[in-house]
């Protein structure tokens, strides 16, 4: 409530300085968005028409009606019909949109419902090192004009282990019940995204809710779905022992590499039932999952006021580790027209998302920041594993997220002038209450409480004016202003060694749990960051005879995260469209549509971290490896320069992107064949990059501006009514994106820079791996090349028998970083979908395929398995073995038997030995549906629609990749084996409308 009060207050503050009524505003008006967008579809033109017609029946238009002439200005966008997506048992926008739009690449890195997923539109603008860059490259999602706020990754600063963000870490884009959505547009064209400002720089996905209808209607939709338990091959200690034996046989004399070498205890006793007995843990880990979805909506009203209200529940079970997502959603839309010239509309979309998360040990130890003794891994035996699970069940792990979007919009239409004002808010809050009982951790309990929110408040105004000089010349003018306030905050506390198992206080409450936990082992954190943006823009559109359209937009943006000396950023966008069909081919029968469009412009890139605005700064970073959250010394807070974070100086300008789009839409043969091709080139300039430097001044790196990255490529969408004779029709539609990424410049005009394990080189893609070339094995010491009596060394260590043969690229008879080369791509060169719709009478069928081509992965899971000596040596988080350690994955025969004790670390992951082609083709959906409407209408007094369907998902994946499903790997491209299988699911559903 406090937030709303604050907001109203600051909203008024801004308002009072202007005379209300003449202030123009900037809105994300759904109707207007489509005005500038082509009607291109990934499926069929027929659907498109059906879709538009439903919109047309809406009683009240939120945006001023436009003359058809202006509609001809076509910018690249992909419209997706949500109806087509509903048969997929998805919960997140990412899942829905995967493979649906050319240029939108979705990573579903785990089958665990509700986990984070990544979207990249037209590649990435910066190298993806961590969650920071991931956050900075995600597209903007807009729901009815409310730009959704993401979860800021600033909490990773206090996390030693950054596997998951603290808190519920729930995918915030699980907040859309697709049943409520009327249209989805994917915008990548600079002229289209510029209207959304610097937050839309990575592309924009516009969702528009279903509009209320004056006719009273009820809709009921539901499905029930079963996920199939995966069949896996399990292994036990015997297998692992045999695997290791080959190394001992080859490299040790007496089963010990050295005096001090110790063989792991759990493999030492071949009579132990825990490790050498049956490996049947899968009975407790995998299951057949049962999911459902129910949604009911009612809409109604009178001529001047109407509403739509919907309620929904989704329960989505994962097939592994008893993971579940449960969502309750409600949406309410209302439109009112109190006066002929005044409209008012409001939206509330509320979602409650609860998750049962996986029980990975790594995630648990990472959360606890404590690694217990790992010498005894989980047993593959069902009984033993069951004991562990029941211990887990004695604790709790409650993850709750509330996500709320609200907006209120008032519009005035007087003749050709219109004015709209919107107040919107997106607020999401997450809670995680966690308790691990004593039995899980060597007699120490652990509790943690998290509460955090991300909040965006939006106040914007748009004024529009249409001018029609005569039948040939049309003008449209628009002025907009927008201000958004983003606030991100969390309170976090954790404690160890509770006095007993029964007092479970919230550590964040006043008492702070000090009666339940020793106060010396109770840690609390608070953090908050803001990011405000003030924008103005003006736009003029000119249209001549429906043949030519020109548009110019200029915007000025001021960000609180820009340095004071360069607070404002002004950027222009120009676009033009030419309707070739109208002008040259109006009598041509072949072409039904032929238009060409071009747009070019610049748009600022929002900076998400407020450190950048401060210039040189001070912080409390007194921690060290393994203990990073030390705020002081001797119980006083300390302040130092941010030596670990890195140097931030003055003179950091706005980062921005220059983008050019050229596209054409063609449809021929009576609209039976439709083609849309778009070429784009986008160069993100002046981006910040942390350059490792100034170590002699204490800094790990220096944040400097000047990184420039180009993404260029082609979006292609082609669809055709191959058969449409009589009752049968077949409409295939292919969408794909080819993207090539290239580093254009580095700060300080460097040619290349090494950052961690990555090399960035101007002229090369930024998603490449930097690897040694593996050429086999030295079978004897004599095999190692000798130059001038000195045998080849790796970083000063003489190579010996059993070490890998790494290619000496520069021929200096020494292997070091100069012998690494850039290889492979972590993001695919080509990604897309191939969707087929068949129709026969009342039957319809769909087949969707999803593919990635030209993507390579590092099979880290295999590297870790072979590098067992080092992995197990330190009792660190890297030594953690999950229960899935007992699952046979990968092709063991691919790798040479190196000496795992060698200090050159033969199975290091920075070599091409573990690089694999991860291209794949996946059968994502097969669906069959039957329209029972006519039968229903013959039985019912009230006319309606009834449709039943059955769907099978993820039936197969074709790939050469030897690890798990290649989709289950995040943006870094390192397959650590933690991705949970995306299940095969079988769904039965019903859709009823009255």
């Amino acid at each position, binding site marked *: 409530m406090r937030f709303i009060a604050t907001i109203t207050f600051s909203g008024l*503050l*801004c308002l009072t300085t202007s005379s209300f009524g003449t202030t123009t505003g900037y809105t994300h008006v759904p109707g207007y968005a489509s005005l500038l967008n082509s009607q291109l579809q990934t499926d069929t033109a027929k659907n498109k028409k059906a879709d538009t017609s439903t919109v047309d029946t809406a009683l009240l238009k939120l945006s001023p009606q436009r003359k058809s002439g202006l509609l001809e200005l076509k910018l690249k966008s992909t419209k997706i019909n949500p109806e087509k997506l509903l048969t997929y048992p998805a919960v997140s926008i990412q899942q829905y949109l995967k493979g649906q739009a050319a240029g939108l690449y979705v990573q579903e890195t785990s089958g665990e419902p509700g986990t984070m997923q990544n979207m990249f539109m037209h590649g990435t603008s910066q190298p993806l090192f961590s969650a920071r860059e991931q956050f900075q490259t995600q597209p903007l999602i807009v729901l009815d004009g409310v730009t959704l706020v993401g979860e800021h990754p600033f909490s990773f600063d206090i996390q030693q282990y950054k596997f998951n963000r603290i808190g519920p870490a729930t995918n915030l884009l699980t907040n859309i019940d697709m049943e409520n959505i009327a249209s989805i547009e994917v915008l990548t064209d600079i002229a289209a995204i510029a209207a959304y400002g610097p937050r839309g720089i990575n592309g924009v996905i516009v969702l528009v809710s279903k509009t209320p209808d004056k006719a009273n209607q009820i809709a009921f939709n539901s499905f029930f779905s079963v996920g199939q338990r995966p069949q896996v091959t399990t292994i036990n200690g015997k297998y692992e022992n045999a695997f290791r034996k080959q190394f001992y046989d080859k490299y040790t004399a007496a089963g010990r590499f050295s005096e001090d070498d110790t063989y792991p205890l759990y493999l030492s006793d071949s009579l132990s039932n825990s490790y050498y007995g049956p490996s049947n843990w899968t009975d407790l880990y995998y299951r057949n999952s049962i999911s459902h979805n129910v949604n009911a909506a009612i809409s109604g009203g009178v001529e001047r006021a109407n509403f739509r209200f919907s309620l929904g529940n989704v329960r989505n079970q994962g097939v592994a580790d008893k993971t579940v997502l449960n969502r309750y959603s409600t949406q309410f839309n209302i439109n009112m027209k109190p006066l002929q010239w005044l409209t008012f509309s409001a939206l509330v979309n509320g979602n409650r998302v609860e998750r049962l998360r996986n029980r990975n040990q790594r995630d648990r130890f990472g959360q606890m920041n404590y690694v217990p003794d790992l010498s005894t891994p989980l047993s593959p035996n069902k009984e033993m594993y069951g004991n562990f699970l029941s211990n887990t069940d004695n604790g709790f792990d409650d993850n709750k997220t509330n996500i709320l979007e609200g907006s209120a919009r008032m519009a005035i239409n007087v003749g050709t002038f219109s004015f709209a004002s919107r107040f919107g808010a997106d607020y999401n809050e997450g809670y995680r209450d966690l308790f691990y009982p004593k039995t899980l951790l060597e007699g120490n309990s652990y509790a943690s409480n998290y509460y955090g929110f991300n909040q965006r408040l939006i106040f914007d105004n748009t004024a529009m004016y249409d001018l029609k000089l005569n039948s040939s010349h049309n003008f449209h003018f628009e002025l907009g202003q927008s201000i958004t306030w983003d606030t991100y905050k969390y309170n976090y506390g954790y404690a160890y060694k509770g006095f007993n198992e029964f007092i479970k206080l919230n550590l964040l409450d006043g008492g702070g749990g000090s009666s339940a936990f020793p106060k010396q082992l109770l840690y609390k954190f608070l953090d908050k960051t803001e990011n405000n943006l003030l924008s103005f823009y003006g736009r003029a559109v000119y249209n001549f005879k429906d043949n030519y359209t020109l548009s110019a937009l200029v915007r000025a943006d001021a960000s609180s995260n820009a340095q004071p000396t360069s607070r404002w950023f002004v950027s222009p966008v120009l676009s033009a469209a030419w309707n070739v069909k109208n002008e040259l081919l109006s009598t041509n029968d072949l072409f039904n549509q032929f238009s060409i469009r071009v747009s070019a412009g610049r748009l600022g890139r929002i900076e998400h971290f*407020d450190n950048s605005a*401060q210039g040189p700064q001070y912080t409390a970073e007194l921690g060290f490896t393994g203990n990073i959250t030390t705020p002081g*010394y001797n119980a006083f807070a*300390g302040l130092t320069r941010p*030596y670990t974070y890195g140097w931030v100086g003055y003179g950091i300008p706005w980062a921005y992107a220059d983008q050019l789009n050229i596209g054409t839409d063609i449809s021929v043969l009576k609209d039976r064949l439709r083609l849309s091709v778009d070429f784009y080139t986008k160069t993100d300039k002046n981006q910040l990059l942390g350059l490792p430097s100034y170590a002699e001044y204490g800094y790990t790196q220096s944040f400097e501006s000047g990184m420039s990255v180009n993404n260029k490529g082609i979006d292609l969408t082609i669809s055709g009514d191959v058969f449409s004779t009589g009752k049968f029709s077949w409409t295939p539609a292919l969408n794909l994106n080819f993207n090539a990424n290239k580093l254009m410049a580095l700060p300080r005009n460097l040619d290349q820079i090494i950052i961690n394990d990555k090399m960035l080189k101007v002229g090369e893609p930024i998603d490449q791996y930097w690897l040694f070339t593996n050429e086999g094995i030295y079978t004897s010491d004599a095999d190692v090349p000798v130059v001038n009596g000195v045998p080849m060394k790796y970083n000063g260590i003489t190579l010996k028998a059993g070490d890998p043969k790494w290619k000496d690229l520069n021929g200096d008879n020494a292997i070091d970083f100069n012998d690494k080369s850039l290889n492979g791509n972590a993001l695919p060169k080509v990604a897309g979908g191939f969707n087929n719709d068949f129709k026969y009478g009342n039957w319809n069928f769909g087949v969707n395929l999803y593919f990635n081509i030209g993507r390579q992965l590092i099979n880290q899971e295999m590297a870790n398995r072979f590098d067992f000596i080092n992995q197990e040596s330190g009792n660190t988080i890297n030594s953690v073995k999950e229960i899935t350690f007992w699952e046979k994955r990968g092709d063991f025969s691919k790798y040479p038997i190196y000496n795992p004790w060698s*200090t050159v*670390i033969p199975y290091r992951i920075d070599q091409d030995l573990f690089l694999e082609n991860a291209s794949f083709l996946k059968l994502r959906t097969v669906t069959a549906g039957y329209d029972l409407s006519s039968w229903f209408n013959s039985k019912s007094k009230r006319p309606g629609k009834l449709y039943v369907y059955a769907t099978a998902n993820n039936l197969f994946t074709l790939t050469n990749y030897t690890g798990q499903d290649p989709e289950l790997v995040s943006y870094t491209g390192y397959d650590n084996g933690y991705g949970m299988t995306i299940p095969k699911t079988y769904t039965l559903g019903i859709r009823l409308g009255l």
Partner: protein
Amino acid sequence: MKKIILGSLISLSLLSAGCKKAIEIDSKRVVGEKNMWLVLEDTRAALIGTYGLTRAALADNNAHWLYGDVRPGEFTVTNRQDLKAIVDNNLNASYSAVEALSNWRRWYAVINSANLFLERVAEVKAKDPRYTENNMTVDIAQIRFLRAFAYFYMVRIWGDVPLIVSSHDGQFENVKRESQQKVLAFVESELIAAAALLPYKYSANDIQQPGRYYNEDETRWAGALARKLTAYAILTHVAAWQGNYPNVATYSKFIMDNYGKGGNGFISTDELTRANGFFNEKKNNHLLGFNFDFGHVDASFTGHIEEITLASPVVNKPLPDIYLSKDSILSVFNEAKDQRFSLDTLGQPINARYFTNFNGKYPIFSKIKVIQGGSTDPTFRIFGSAIVVTRLEDIALLRAEALAVLGERDGAIEILNNNIRRNRGLDNYNPLINGNLIDAIFKERQRELMGEGHRWYDLIRYAKIRTTMPKINRLIENGGIYWPISRNLIIQNNLLTQNSHWK
């Protein structure tokens, strides 16, 4: 139409003024330059910050002990491959801890923080009348001490290092390595200057620091900060490292004459080895110590010798990372009645002070064992021991060493007997039993200071005096006693050259 546009423009410009507040906000997460160096709380935070950075440099990857106690190779490594590489003097190996130990960035963070303090402290003096002249003098002396200490520590690890004495804020430039003689000369002059200004104690009405230091009482500061004796202690170490034994004698004499003023004293074996004894919390007796006080919620899982030495039954961990084998223990602790460790007539250890589980496969070196706040609860491996860089026994033994080298045998023997051997239950030094005096002093150092990060440097001094250690003498000759300079540093700064031994 025109009116609308004009009106809009005017209102837009007004609006921008009203919303200026929204875009001109200060970060809630970091302190910008304009809000720093204003009041004495800022100098306190910056001072504490520099201490914290020093502690972080010592504690990171347990560097202090890996440099000092692991590298000599007397401890045996069980499973950790990175520690094995250090023991094998294989310091180029690509393990993250080895790489971190060859990177001096954390020490330069201390230096940069100190340089910045020295450049900016006058601003606070000018702005905040509460910040007294004396407060500033003492702060500056501590900062100069910390900077000098950082350089000294680095010289021992890397030999020649870049000597940077100003912050170069925003105008950073690469600097080449300076000869260690020059760096040590700088260190010595800085320490002498600091020693002159530092008090014996804080908030204890010392003539050089009257009143309550930063308005806190004596116990709050006890042992946490650098004091006059601290500066002399490090001066002693610097002189010893240079082999300048007359200076060792001079500086250590000051400490031996004045330690009472600093609240210092020689400690009993029980105090030394009790879980809640010497290493727990902070004490005046920590001549230079960096505490991890459990009571201050400052205990940590890493940054303590306990992390690598303790294991079952002292803590829940099956194997220690390093241990001293039975044979080694017996060869080091070869005198009866030694309260630290010795065998009784039946061949059983008389106590478990230094070593627990002596008869097991892995004797646990448990001299330092501050679990939580000094408890014996083995279940949770969080440690509260302070990093004690030097203490009175260390200085006394350095003095004995100096006197022995300088030929003042009686003085050396007196210190050895009165200050160390007697306190540990040993009979007086007897050349017939204990052998050469120098050998006896170094053996005493080894026993007394085991696990406190001294052994590597002791071995080098010993090898220089006695030249009976061919392996170490060879390393001294070819520069192999130093660590390689991290490849990452050389990539960043093209003026740096690798230590010849590691090329």
